[in-house]
Every structure is written in structure tokens, then in C-alpha cells.
């Protein structure tokens, strides 16, 4: 799930710095998920597109290719106005972030 080799090309071997970054990414992604959920409930297409695009960019830059792909998939479903599929994508994004949060927590414990 975590592309450690990619993060090492930027942070070097500093595991503490990598963990700090991963925690920050999880927090930032959780905020995005909240916004995405709210925008989905309100069917606010503009806000939903903006938040998905932002999370996609953030995930892609941070090495979370699968998450970026799901965001892209949701963006495609917005174009089709398929709210059932959009809701499914949002759930997938939420679950991904939850799994990531657990993995990051385990990594942080292992390093402390």
C-alpha cells in the first residue's frame, strides 16, 4: 500500500520524516474524504470534482497510485452523472484511507 521506495527517493532513509509525512497525508486525505462525502450527499458536482481532483493529485504525488486511480474513476462517474457508482467509489476511497491509517499507525509504532 505504501510505496516506501518512492518516498525514499525524496526523503532519503529518514524513517521519522517519512512517518511524519505519512501521518500528514492520512490527516489531509481524511479531511478530503469528509468533503467528498458531504459533496456527494448534497450532489454538489463542482465541489465533488474539485475535492476528488485534489485528492487524486495528492495521492499520485505521494505514491498512492491505487487511490489516485479510484479518484479518477469517481471523476469519470461524475461525468456520467452515475450517483450509485460515485457513492461506491467514495466508499472505496474511505476504506482505502482507513486501511492506510492502520498501516501508518503500525509503522509508527514499529519505529518508536
Amino acid at each position, binding site marked *: 500500500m505504501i510505496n516506501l521506495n518512492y518516498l525514499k*527517493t*525524496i*526523503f*532519503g532513509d529518514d524513517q521519522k*520524516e517519512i512517518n511524519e*509525512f505519512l501521518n*500528514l*497525508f492520512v490527516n*489531509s486525505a481524511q479531511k478530503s474524504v469528509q468533503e467528498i462525502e458531504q459533496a456527494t450527499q448534497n450532489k454538489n458536482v463542482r465541489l465533488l470534482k*474539485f475535492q476528488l*481532483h*485534489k485528492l*487524486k*493529485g*495528492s495521492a*499520485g*504525488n*505521494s*505514491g498512492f497510485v491505487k487511490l*489516485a486511480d479510484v479518484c479518477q474513476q469517481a471523476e469519470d462517474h461524475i461525468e456520467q452523472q452515475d450517483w450509485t457508482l460515485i457513492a461506491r467509489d467514495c466508499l472505496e476511497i474511505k476504506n482505502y484511507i482507513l486501511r492506510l491509517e492502520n498501516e501508518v499507525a503500525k509503522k509508527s509504532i514499529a519505529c518508536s
Partner: protein
Amino acid sequence: MTIDSALISSEKVLIADDDEPTRILLRTAISKWGYQVIEATHGEQAWDLLQQPDAPKLLVVDWLMPQLDGLALCERIRNQLVLQPYIIFLTRLSGTPNILKGLEAGADEFLIKPVNYSELHIRLLAGERIVKYRDIVISKNQELQVCLTYINTLEQLLYLILEGKK
């Protein structure tokens, strides 16, 4: 990320991106290349920073940002700033129409996210080189203006002397 010492710079780079993780990744990479990094979380903040004395001459900007997006920021820079930074656009909006849109707005370079850091480094070095040449041209122009004023004064003096001899 190994760095050739010849590729280390001391130029300032302004990163304008509303996404904090992306800013951290860019800041970490760019400062390792020796650049001084300044950050803005939206276009208006970047615009304010670009108007300060000794403003950064290199700008790495995201397209989609709140308040003032990257495209509008580029257009404002090209229309209103005399000393313009070298602009590198970073976005996930790929495809020729988007690339053209970005370049037409005034971007010098257009890189697709996720960022290829080696490519970004090379683009920054190219931007730095262009900015340096531009600064040399400006400085030489100023010197020429001083010389021209001096020549004009001498011409007037010569005219007065010749007039006096008549």
C-alpha cells in the same frame, strides 16, 4: 536522490499549491537541490509574495487552487509584473488542449503530476539559466541607458561650444 554539486543552486523557488502533502514533497526535493523554498497555499498569496522586493524568480504552480487558480495567476503575472518569474505549471490536467491553455496563459513549462523529480530539477535549472540571462540583459540595458544619457549631455555641450565659436 543523488545531487551533482554543479547542479546546486541558491535561487529562490516559490511553490504555490493548496495541497499540503504535495507542498512537503516538493519542498523536500527542491531544497535538497540547494534552492531556497517559499510556499503559498493559494494564488492570491503567491501573487502577494511575487510583488515583494527580492521576490522569487522561479515559480512552481498548481493549476487548481482556491481563491486564484494557477491559470489566472499566470495571466495576472504576464499582464501586470515587469520582472516576471519563470513559471513551471504542475497539474494532473493532461491532454493537448490543457497544455495549450496553460502555455497560452503564460507558463514557460508544463509538467504532468505525479511529479517526475528529475525532470522538475532540469526544468528549474533551465529556468534559472533563462532568468540569469534576462537579468544580464536588463543590467546591460541600464548601463546602455546611462551611456546614452552621457552621450546626449556631451552632444549638447559640444553644440553649445560650437555655437559659442560662431
